[in-house]
C-alpha cells in the first residue's frame, strides 16, 4: 500500500519542528528557509497550515522539466529531483500550480519534497500529529488530486 503525507492543520501549533527536521535531513542544517515543508500562519484566523508537495500523479513539475531532472520514485510514488541533472532553470517552480517546488539560490537548483525516501522526517518530528505518513487511501489525497486534475488541462483526456 502506498503511503502519503496527511496534514491536519487543526492540530498544528506552528512550532516548525517539521521544517527543522526536513532541512536537517536534506541539508544537514537546521534551516527552515530550506525546508521542503512550510508552515503558513493565518494570524487573523488563528490557524497554522503545514504544506508541501502532494506528489500529484501527472506531476506538472516533472512534465515541464526540460532536462529530465525530476523522476518518479517507483517505491514511494514521490517525484524526486535528480540534482546532477537539474540545471536550475526554474521552469518547474512556475509550472507547479501548488507552489511546492522552490528554487534554492545557494545550490542553484530546485528543491521539493521527496518523502525522505519513504521515512518523512517532518512526520517523525511533528509533536502534535498534525503531519502523519499513512496509507494513501486515508489521507484525502484523492480530493487533492481531483483538484489537481481540475488544474491540469491535459487530463481532460485521461
Amino acid at each position, binding site marked *: 500500500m502506498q503511503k502519503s503525507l496527511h*496534514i491536519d*492543520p487543526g492540530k498544528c501549533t506552528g512550532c516548525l519542528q517539521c521544517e527543522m527536521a526536513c532541512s536537517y535531513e536534506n541539508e544537514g542544517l537546521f534551516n527552515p528557509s530550506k525546508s521542503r515543508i*512550510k508552515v*503558513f500562519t*493565518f494570524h487573523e484566523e488563528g490557524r497554522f*497550515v503545514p*504544506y508541501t508537495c502532494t506528489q500529484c500523479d501527472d506531476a*506538472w513539475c516533472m*512534465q*515541464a522539466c*526540460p*532536462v*529530465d531532472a525530476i523522476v518518479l520514485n517507483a517505491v514511494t510514488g514521490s517525484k524526486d529531483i535528480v540534482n546532477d*541533472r537539474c*540545471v*536550475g*532553470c*526554474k*521552469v518547474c*517552480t*512556475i*509550472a*507547479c*500550480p*501548488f*507552489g*511546492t*517546488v*522552490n*528554487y534554492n*539560490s545557494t545550490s*542553484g537548483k530546485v528543491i521539493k519534497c521527496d518523502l525522505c525516501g519513504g521515512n518523512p522526517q517532518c512526520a517523525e518530528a511533528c509533536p502534535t500529529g498534525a503531519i502523519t505518513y499513512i496509507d494513501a487511501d486515508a489521507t*484525502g489525497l484523492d*480530493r487533492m488530486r481531483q*483538484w489537481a486534475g*481540475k*488544474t491540469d*488541462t*491535459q487530463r*481532460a*483526456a*485521461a
Partner: protein
Amino acid sequence: MRHVIIGAGPAGVVAAETLRKRMPQADIVLIGDEPEPPYSRMAIPYHLIGNIGESGTYLRKTEGYYEKLGIEQLQRRVTDLSLAQKQLTLDNGNRISFDKLLLATGSHPVKPPVEGMDLPGVVNCWTLADARQIIARSQPGDDVVLMGAGFIGCIILEALARRGINLTVVEMENRMVPRMMDGNSGTLLKQWCEDKGVRVLTSTRVTGVTQENGRLVVQLDGRDPVPVNLLISATGVRPNTGLAGELECDQGIVVNEHLQTSQPDVYAAGDVAEGRDFSTGGYSVQAIQPTAVQHGALAAANMSGARQAVHQGSINMNVLDTMGLISGSFGLWQGADGGDSVTLNNPASYRYMNLQFADDVLVGANTLGLTQHVGVLRGLIQNRTRLGRWKQRLLDDPTRVMEAYLAHHVP
C-alpha cells in the same frame, strides 16, 4: 497506424512518449533536423556557463531511451510535405507516409533587417551549434554586443558576463524583457545588470554591422559605434511554418481546442502552433517550454484515439534568471480591462511585485526577486480562484499569495 512527428524539441518528444503510452503497437517516427539527440534550448545558458556538458541539455537522459520505447528517430530535414498524399519527403530524398502527423517544428531566431547580419562573427543563441560558436568566439577580454534584451538575451547574460568578456547589451525597447515584464520591473532589471558591470543600452537600435580590420563594428543610432569580436543576435523568434503549405496560418499554424490544424489528421504543437491562450481565450503563439509540453501531450492524446481531449488554453508564463535576479511573469501581467491591480516596488532591494485582477480573480502577475512558492500565482490564475475577501488582503499585501491560495484550497 503510423504517427510522424516533425520536430524533436520538448513538444515532439512529449508527444512521442504520450503516443507510445497510449498506443503500444503504433509506428512512431520522430524527425529532428539537428545532429544531436533531442535537447532543451532552455538548458543552453547553463551549458554556456559550464555547469553542464552538452549532454546535460538532452531532454531525456537514459541510454537508449527512444529505442527502448520503440520510437524511430531520424536526424533529417523535411523538405516537402504532401497533405493530399499524407506523405513527406526528407532531405535525402526518402519519402515517409503517415496516418497522423504532428508538426512540432518549433521556431527560429528572427534575423533583424539590418545590414551586415550575415557577416561572420554574427551569431544567434538558439542551437547547440550556436552555443559552440559563442564559446569559441568569446574569450576573456573580448568585446561582445548582445543585440536584444528579451528572454533569451537575458537568460544568457550571466553566462556571457562570467566568461570575462566586455559586454554591451543593446535593446531597442525602453526596458529589458519588454514582452514579459512591465516598465517598473524591466527598468529595475536594467539597473541590476548595470550594477553588475554590464553596459545596457535601451531605446537603442543597431543600425548596421560592418567589418574592419578583422573585427565587427556595430553601428548604433545616436551613439558611438562599438567594435566587437562577436555580435550575438537575440531579437526574438518566429514559428517555423515553412511546411504548413495550405494549412491555416496566422502568426503560427492555427490549431483548434484539440490541437488540430485545418487538416484533420495534422496536428501542431509547441512554438509553431498558434493555440488557445488561457488568459485571453484567443489564439496566440506562446513559445514557452510549459506550453510546448502541454501541447505535445494533448495533441498526442487526440492523435491516439477517438476520445477528444480539449485544450482549455495554456497560460503564458515565464521565469528568468538574469545574473541572479529572478523575474517571473504570469498570464495577463499587462492587466485586464477595468480590473484592479496592486504594486509593491522596492528598488533598493530589487524586489517587485505586481498583481492584476479581473473582478476578484487573479489574472496576471509580474515578480522580481521572488523564488518561493511562485507556482501558486499560476495556480490561482489557472483555477480562476474567486478570492473573496482575500482579494482585499492581497491588495493590502500582495506577498500573501500563498496564504490566499491555501485559504481556498486546503480544507
